[in-house]
């Protein structure tokens, strides 16, 4: 379903380090890395889930046999416009912070 992000997830290869010299520290680092990757993936996934719900509410009226081209276009636009809005919010927020710092 979220195939887009799964591509890079499985490229992890922890089997490359040869056995005997591997210290516990190294292992801990590797596991730490995996956990960070998983956290990043989880964050992206959560974002996708949230946007999906928002756009679902905006674009899909009554569930039918197909989404239909109109709804699909609406969903795609919805995602893009949500991005645009987030950018505006971030900019505006920055402005406000800068203004309060200088003023």
């Amino acid at each position, binding site marked *: 379903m979220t195939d887009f992000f799964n591509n890079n997830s499985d490229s992890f290869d922890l089997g490359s380090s040869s056995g005997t010299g591997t210290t516990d520290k190294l292992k801990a680092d590797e596991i730490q890395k995996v956990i960070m990757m998983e956290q990043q993936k989880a964050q992206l996934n959560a974002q996708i889930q949230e946007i999906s719900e928002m756009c679902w509410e905006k674009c899909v009226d009554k569930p039918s046999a197909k989404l239909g081209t109109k709804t699909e276009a609406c969903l795609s636009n*919805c995602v893009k416009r949500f991005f645009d809005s987030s950018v505006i919010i971030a900019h505006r927020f920055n402005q406000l912070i800068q203004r309060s710092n200088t003023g």
Partner: protein
Amino acid sequence: MDGSKMSQDELVEKLKHQVALENIELLLMKMSRLCFNKCIIKPGPSLDSTEQKCVSMCMDRYMETVSLVSKSFGERLMAESQNMH
């Protein structure tokens, strides 16, 4: 000598498996909530066939929606990251 390495790989696999399970559980809960809201307007003594059909279709359409959103989201992320370089 591979005893400890095996358990490390196993740990990673377990972690990924757990994350996947959690994602599925969250998705199921979300779909139940959204499709209940869309399809069961006034709960009666049982789900009638229209409601049942609506709920099934709703789930299928929602999965398609997530996949579409994921695609658009990914495309936009790619475009943004290319703009930065």
